[in-house]
C-alpha cells in the first residue's frame, strides 16, 4: 500500500459516501463528478493513461452534464431545495433497483476469471495498440456500445422534444 493509493481511495469512497448522505441533488451530482475524477486518478496511478483521460473526458465532461441537466429539467420548481425522504414504498423501490444493479455488477466481477498470480510484468501499451485492439478483436463490443448510446440519445431527444409549430416571423 502506498500513500497515493490511500489518498485516491479516500477521495473516491469519501465523495461517494457524502454524495449519498446529502439531500441536495446538485451537490450530490457534483460530488459524484469528484468521485469519477478520483477513479480517473486511480487509472493514472495504475498506469492506464489512455483510460484515465477517456474517463475524465466522458464522465467529468459529458456524463456529468447529462446528470445535471436531468436534475434541473425534471425538478423545475425547486431544483435547489433539499429533497426529503418520501415514503417507505419509495425507499423499498430504490433499494430493489440499487440492489439489482449491484447484484449484476458483483456477479459480473465474480464471473470474470482474474488470474492475478500468473500476471507477468505490467504490459506497456501504447495508444496505437489499444486502437488496434478496439478496431480488431473488440470491434463488435465497440459497435454495440455506440449503437446503444445512439438509441439512448434519440430516446432522450424524443422525450425532451415538444412539437411546436415554428412561428411564421422567424421563418421569413
Amino acid at each position, binding site marked *: 500500500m502506498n500513500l497515493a493509493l490511500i489518498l485516491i481511495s479516500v477521495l473516491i469512497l469519501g465523495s461517494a459516501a457524502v454524495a449519498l448522505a446529502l439531500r441536495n441533488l*446538485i451537490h450530490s451530482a*457534483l460530488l459524484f*463528478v469528484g468521485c469519477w475524477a478520483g477513479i480517473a486518478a486511480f487509472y493514472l496511478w495504475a498506469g492506464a*493513461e*489512455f483510460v484515465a*483521460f*477517456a474517463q*475524465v*473526458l466522458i464522465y*467529468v*465532461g*459529458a456524463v*456529468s*452534464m447529462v446528470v*445535471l441537466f436531468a436534475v*434541473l429539467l425534471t425538478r423545475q420548481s425547486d431544483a*435547489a431545495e433539499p429533497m426529503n425522504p418520501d415514503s417507505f414504498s419509495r425507499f423499498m423501490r430504490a433499494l430493489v433497483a440499487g440492489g439489482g444493479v449491484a447484484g449484476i455488477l458483483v456477479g459480473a466481477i465474480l464471473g470474470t476469471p482474474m488470474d492475478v498470480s500468473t500476471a507477468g510484468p505490467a504490459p506497456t501499451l*501504447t*495508444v*496505437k495498440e489499444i486502437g488496434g485492439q478496439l478496431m480488431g478483436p473488440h470491434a463488435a463490443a465497440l459497435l454495440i456500445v455506440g449503437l446503444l448510446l445512439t438509441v439512448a440519445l434519440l430516446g432522450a431527444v424524443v422525450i425532451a422534444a415538444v412539437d411546436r409549430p415554428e412561428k411564421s416571423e*422567424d*421563418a*421569413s
Partner: protein
Amino acid sequence: MSVTAEAGTFLERAPLVLRDAVVQWFPAPLQWLAHHLITIVAILAVFGVFFAFTTVAERKLLGRLQNRLGPNRAGLPWIKGSKLFGLTQPFADAVKALTKEDIVPAAADKLLHFLAPVLVVAFSLMTFAVLPFGRNLIPVELDAALLYFFAAGSATELAIFMAGWASRNKYSLLAAMRALAQVISYELPLMLSVVPVVLVVGSLSTSEIALAQGGWTFGFLPHWHVFTPWGFFGFLLFLVAALAESNRAPFDLPEAESELIAGHLTEYSGFKYALFFMAEYFGLTALSGLGVTLFLGGWQAPFAFLEFIPSYAWFMLKLIGMIGFFIWARGTLLRLRIDQLTRLAWQFMVPLALINLGNAAFWALTSGWSGPLQFVRWGVSIALVVGPFILLGRGLNGGRGPRTYRYATS
C-alpha cells in the same frame, strides 16, 4: 554563417540548458521536484505575461478597428509624464481588479460560487502541459496528449454550470444553460476537425504531430497540414469551433453585454470576475497553440534558411498570429443569434467535418501515389472539400434568404 549556426543551436538549447543548470543547485533527492516546478513556473510566467499583453493588444487593436485610440495613457507611476503607449495598462487593470470589492449574493451557494472561477483557471492552465513549444521543449511528454488536452478542457463546462447555478440568480442560470448548449455543440466539430490529423499522422502525441510536419517539397513548400486540402479545411473548421469554444466574438452570446447582463458572470465581481476572463484568454491561447501544433507546423520554420531562428520563437510568432486573427475577427464580425449558432454547428460543421475525415482517410490511403497520380490525388481531395461545402451551404440557405425589414410607416 557557421557563427550564426552555432548561435542558433545554442539559442535552441538555451531554455533546457538553463533549466538543467538551475536543477543542479538542488540536492539530488529534490531534483525531480525542482525540474517540474521550474517548468510550471516558466509556463505561468510566460503565459501570464502573454495574457497581460494580449489584453492590451486586443484593446488597442480593437480601438484602431473602431477608429479610436484605445488605451494609451498608463505609464510608469513613478515617472511623471511617461506614457509608454499605454503598455502598462494590464498591470493597472490587475491592481484595480484585485482591490475591487468582492460581492457574494446572500442566497448564493458560497462554496460552489468560490470554486467555479478557481476550477476554470486551473483547468485552462493544465492544457498548456502538452503543447510542444519548441524542439524538445514540451512540459509533459504524453502518448495520449491530445486526449489529455480535451479532457482538461472539458472541465470548463462544469465550471460554467457551477457559476450559473451557485449564483442563485435566474439570469445566471438561464445564461449558463445557453453557454453550455454552445460549448457542448461546438465540442463535436472541434474534435472532429482534429481527428483527421490524428488519422494521417497516426499518433495522439502532440510532439510527434509537430515532428511529422517537418521538411520541404522543392526546398520551399513546408509540409504543414494546412497546405493540404483536408488540412486547410480542417483548420478552418478548427478556427470557427475554437472561437465558439472560447466564447469569443462572433460567438460571445454567453456574455453578450447588450442582451444578457453578463451571462453566468452576473453575480461575480472583483477578482473572481477577472479570473473568468483570464481563463477565457488562457483557453484561447491554448487552443491557438493546439491549432499551431496540429495545422501550422508547430515549431517548424517556414523556410529552410530561416531555421537558425530558434524553434520556440517560431511557435510564439505563429501563436501571436493566431491571436491577432482572433482579435481581428472580433472587430469585424457580428454576433450570431443562438438558433443560428446551433444550426451552424449541427447542420453545417458536423457533416462537413465528417466528410473531411473521409477526405483525410483518402489522403492517407493514397500517400504512395506519385507522378500524374499526384494531380488526381489533389483534385479528388479538393473536390471533396469544395463540393460538399457549396452543396450544403446552398441547401441550408434555401428558404432562408436575406431578411426583409419592415419599418414603421406613419
